[in-house]
């Protein structure tokens, strides 16, 4: 781990152990995956899931004294997520050309019709393991795109590939990861 992460780790520990917000922080962490999954179902557009989940928790925290933290918070968070998602969806769509709006609505219909994806520690651990199983070139590509934030066009220039080939490779890598995660979890997870 880097020094920054290390200092972050210390900072987090201090917050968690010494503040009265411990419970709130725990609740946020415990429900983060739930909110993200719902946000994905309601607003499957690039970048919106993070925006929505962040906004939900900001609003949740701003009014934390109003909530009964001993109760199951999922119904409350689900309602908040729906409202925030609807707001973000409306705002994002307003800036889109007509054809984008049509596509966005179509994809949202598809997402609504399927079960919300499950996010959780097991899935993340499976993903981590599946990434390690990829060939070096695949991991390098993911590293450049996701870690370094380099665009597909710039990766293509660096790796002397056509930009379309980079897009296809990323698509196939994600497909492989999806299959691998599915296999891993269906076999009883990492310890199964």
């Amino acid at each position, binding site marked *: 781990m880097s020094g*920054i992460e290390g200092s972050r780790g210390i900072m987090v520990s201090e917050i968690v152990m010494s503040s009265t917000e411990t419970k709130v922080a725990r609740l946020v*962490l415990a429900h983060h995956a739930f909110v993200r999954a719902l946000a994905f179902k309601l607003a499957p557009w690039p970048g919106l899931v993070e925006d929505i989940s962040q906004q939900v928790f900001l609003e949740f925290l701003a009014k934390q004294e109003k909530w009964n933290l001993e109760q199951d918070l999922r119904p409350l968070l689900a309602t908040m997520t729906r409202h925030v998602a609807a707001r973000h969806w409306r705002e994002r769509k307003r800036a889109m050309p007509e054809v984008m709006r049509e596509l966005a609505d179509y994809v949202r219909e598809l997402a609504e019709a399927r079960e919300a994806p499950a996010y959780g520690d097991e899935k*993340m651990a499976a993903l981590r393991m599946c990434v390690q199983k990829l060939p070096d070139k695949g991991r390098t590509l993911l590293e450049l795109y996701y870690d370094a934030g380099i665009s597909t066009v710039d990766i293509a220039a660096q790796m002397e590939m056509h930009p379309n080939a980079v897009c296809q490779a990323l698509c196939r890598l994600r497909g492989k990861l999806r299959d691998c995660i599915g296999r891993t979890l269906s076999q009883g997870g990492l310890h199964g």
Partner: protein
Amino acid sequence: MDEPIEPRETEVLIQEYVSGQLTPEEAAQLLRHLKAQPSLGAALLGQMEIDLLLRELTGAVGRDSQPALPTFSLLEPPAPRTEFPLPTTMTALRRHSWRTALAWVTGLAAALVLVFGYWFWPDKDNLPRLGRSSAGVEVQRGEERLPATRRLHLQPGDIIETGPGQSAVVEFAREGTRLALSGETRLGLSNLEKGKHFALHRGKLEAAVARQPADEPLAVDTPQAEASVRGTRFSLSSQWEATWLKVLKGEVDLQSKSADLSRPVMTGQFAVAAPNVELRARPISRTGLRVPVPVDPRVVSTGGDGNWEADGDTVQQSKVSALPDPKRSGPFDQNPFSWFSRQIPVAGNIEVSLQARLDAVAEDPGPLGNSHFGLTLILDRKHLNFMCERNPAGEGVARLYSFVIEGSPRLEGGETDRRVSLPLSFQTGQTFQFKVRVNRLSEGQVQLLARVWPRGKPEPAIWQLDAIRNAPPVQPLLEFGTRRCACTFTETHVALVE
């Protein structure tokens, strides 16, 4: 009937969707595919889901987010569990994604103004300093040259210089602003008065800039332009008389010095400040950054006996060029071409495409041999030729070669031929498409790439001709040339490419 769906095209469209880079045309195409093949919907959502997980895993939370600190390297095995920074008693927390947990708790800390030393952590001041740099990177401070060590605080007047293949990062740690310098880049810290002012003398940087206070922007000055930023992610490069700005998030004002104009450039757009290029925001497409450049319509020179006539973009010969240029001395076979040239008014990486219709050829074998037609880019004295040669039977080759007027035809030091000829057949009346790329490798060297194919056939997927040549960084002349034939040249397009 529905158009057939090409899986590779669909993969590209899905990637563009997932990355938020889809253009309206691509959106229409993707929508058609989704409606025609319902199983694609599940694939698209599955791709998005894995994309979100990967972003969470690597800490790249949100493609439009502020710079994220890496939490997991995809190239390295995961850190052992014992390094988990949360207290071991918090088992409830550990059942969830602790990487996300860190990010969220950090967000909470800011939101709730829980001052637990984060902002006062000695590692987190907001003065400009060096982050990770390659070995060999130096900071020029007055007469001194300092090695670029991590956390070296920068002072106004400092210049960071990277060599080929090196990189360096300038960061404002507290607010999270980062400027990542590519190789062969010179970036100076000008001053910190009313903002953060840098000068990009040459090279390229990618920046993730936290929101800046009003009237205190982060500004990067280049020889051609100034980019003024209030909070965004962008890349900026200055080379070959052009400044390229690519905005990944937010808005950047780009002010062109030569045009004395300023234009806002928004998320997903880019702009170029360069002489003879219109300053305006353009959408970033998946084929890279490129802007059309108008060729100067004035004729620079013509020669030979081809009777050249120009009508706008169409340049046509009314006579087969049969004789060498009578104005030039020397043997016939060293000076046989008839030509027509115009000026390309930019000096950077360029791509030229055009069509040449072979209208007529001199069929009888003469002292000047086979028919030739094609184009030449002339950079000062260097002639870079992309020519088709045809024998009376119609067989021939497309060839890439170069020469210097009154110089040796042999390759100079540093010049290489990778692939310089391609068999082709040429029939009278047939039209050929030329696409030629000149990539500047350094101040005095270019890579030449070319494709030639008959119109109506698919464009070759690869560059068929490829060579390295020494050539100065000047604005090229575009010359159409023929020998023992007559052609019509049309559809000439020149693009400046990043």
